[in-house]
């Protein structure tokens, strides 16, 4: 079997991975706080063919060095997530908050561990706790009094409630987390990330302090998927797929030519 056939097939499957990933990005173009990812490709190992081995009748052993290197294709090795800021859109909902700048919201998982998110679409649950869309409370548990008329979240993350008797009470503080290496975070779905050894430990800080973004009440951070970029990537991947399929065809043609040597 010619090497070219399997090389091209591996090229096709690598591009297929790329298309799968682009499909996921495009499916999340409307997902609040979504961060787009790209697939990292690498070439596979190489076979060294000494030039004297080419052509069997060679009697001289001149230039035995590996003068021809034939590669075995490409493969997808890693997913690289891009944590660039998404655009911030106004919703008018008082419990929708967006981070403008660096940092993650912290929510408490059912097992008590902390997950991180850029999705600031919060609401009040039956007990008055501020929870995200999956019902997970904000770390530090901010409880809204039942008789609160309005809630105000400052750019520094302080949450105040306006009570029925026109008094303002401080009910909590939203703290942000930040990592030395965002790329090391693991996405676990539901717009959540968890810290890994690769991301390093979280730094905590109040919004607006050095290095942390500020909080905008009434806004949500949109997905950072850029449709135009994704479409361009899709064209690239699709064309590369097509090119590799042509190679499969050419390799197949060569095999058929070889077969027709014998009539």
């Amino acid at each position, binding site marked *: 079997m010619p*090497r070219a056939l399997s090389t091209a097939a591996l*090229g096709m499957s690598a591009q297929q991975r790329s298309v799968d990933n682009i499909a996921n990005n495009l499916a999340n173009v409307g997902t609040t706080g979504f961060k787009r990812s790209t697939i990292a490709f*690498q070439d596979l190992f190489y076979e060294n063919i000494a030039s004297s081995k080419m*052509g069997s009748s060679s009697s001289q052993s001149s230039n035995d060095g590996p003068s021809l*290197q034939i590669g075995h294709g490409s493969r997808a090795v890693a997913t690289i997530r*891009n944590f660039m800021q998404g655009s911030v859109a106004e919703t008018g909902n008082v419990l929708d908050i967006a981070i403008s700048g660096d940092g993650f919201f912290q929510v408490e998982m059912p097992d008590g561990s902390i997950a991180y998110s850029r999705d600031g679409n919060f609401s009040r649950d039956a007990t008055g706790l501020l929870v995200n869309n999956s019902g997970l409370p904000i770390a530090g548990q901010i409880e809204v009094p039942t008789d609160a008329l309005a809630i105000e979240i400052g750019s520094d993350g302080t949450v105040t409630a306006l009570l029925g008797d026109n008094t303002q009470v401080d009910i909590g503080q939203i703290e942000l987390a930040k990592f*030395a290496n965002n790329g090391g975070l693991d996405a676990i779905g539901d717009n959540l990330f968890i810290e890994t050894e690769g991301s390093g430990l979280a730094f905590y800080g109040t919004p607006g302090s050095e290095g942390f973004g500020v909080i905008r009440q009434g806004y949500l951070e949109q997905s950072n998927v850029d449709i135009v970029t994704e479409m361009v990537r899709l064209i690239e991947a699709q064309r590369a797929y097509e090119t590799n399929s042509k*190679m499969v065809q050419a390799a197949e043609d060569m095999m058929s030519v070889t077969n027709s040597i014998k009539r």
Partner: protein
Amino acid sequence: MQMQAMQVLQRSQDVTADNLANINTPGFKGNKLFYRMMTENMNGTEIRRAVPMSQVNLDQGILEPTGNEFDVAINGDGFFKVMDGDQEYLTRDGRFSLNNDGFLINNNGAKVLGDSGPIQLSDLFQKNNENGGPNRLEISKDGSLLINGIPQDKLQIININDPSLLQRQGSSYFTVTDEIELSDEGTGRVMQGYFEKGNVKPLAEMVDMMRNMQMFESQQRAMRTTDDMLSQVTNRLGKI
């Protein structure tokens, strides 16, 4: 003769297939295929044949911005040096990240080498002394790594004078056959927040693919003609 030519063309097609499979591989350097004429003297008759050789095509790939501070690309000549296991490799793929010990690593988990061994940036995990915020990594054009403006280490950028000495090792790695050829002069600029795309040109590769295919077919025709001639010789001459 035709058989050798067909084997050579098959090899050429394998090389083209590998180039095409790596169209979208960042930092990939295409294979440049060339033929060398070999003359053999067999019993006074000169037999010429073409031997395929490949060389790494070191043309610059397009730099694409990513906005990731750990992505670096070289604009110009030179290679990054990484240590995978206990083996040192050269690579143009500069999409790095940090591991849990603060070492700068690539996608294979290999440590990136600086002027004094593997680059460790554990200071990035520490709080900034002045304001309590996180530290920032900056990579300057000459490959120096700075945390909050304080120099830490320098990326080792190696230049190869003779690309024919490069050996491909897969996973975007290269080694050199002769260590003496390494130098750090004339290297390009280091660009932070970019990665280098592969330098395979689809048009040229498609043309190569069709050429290989057509030449393969014409060699097969030539082989059949030779076969016809031999059959004429044995069948017709044998009747006399």
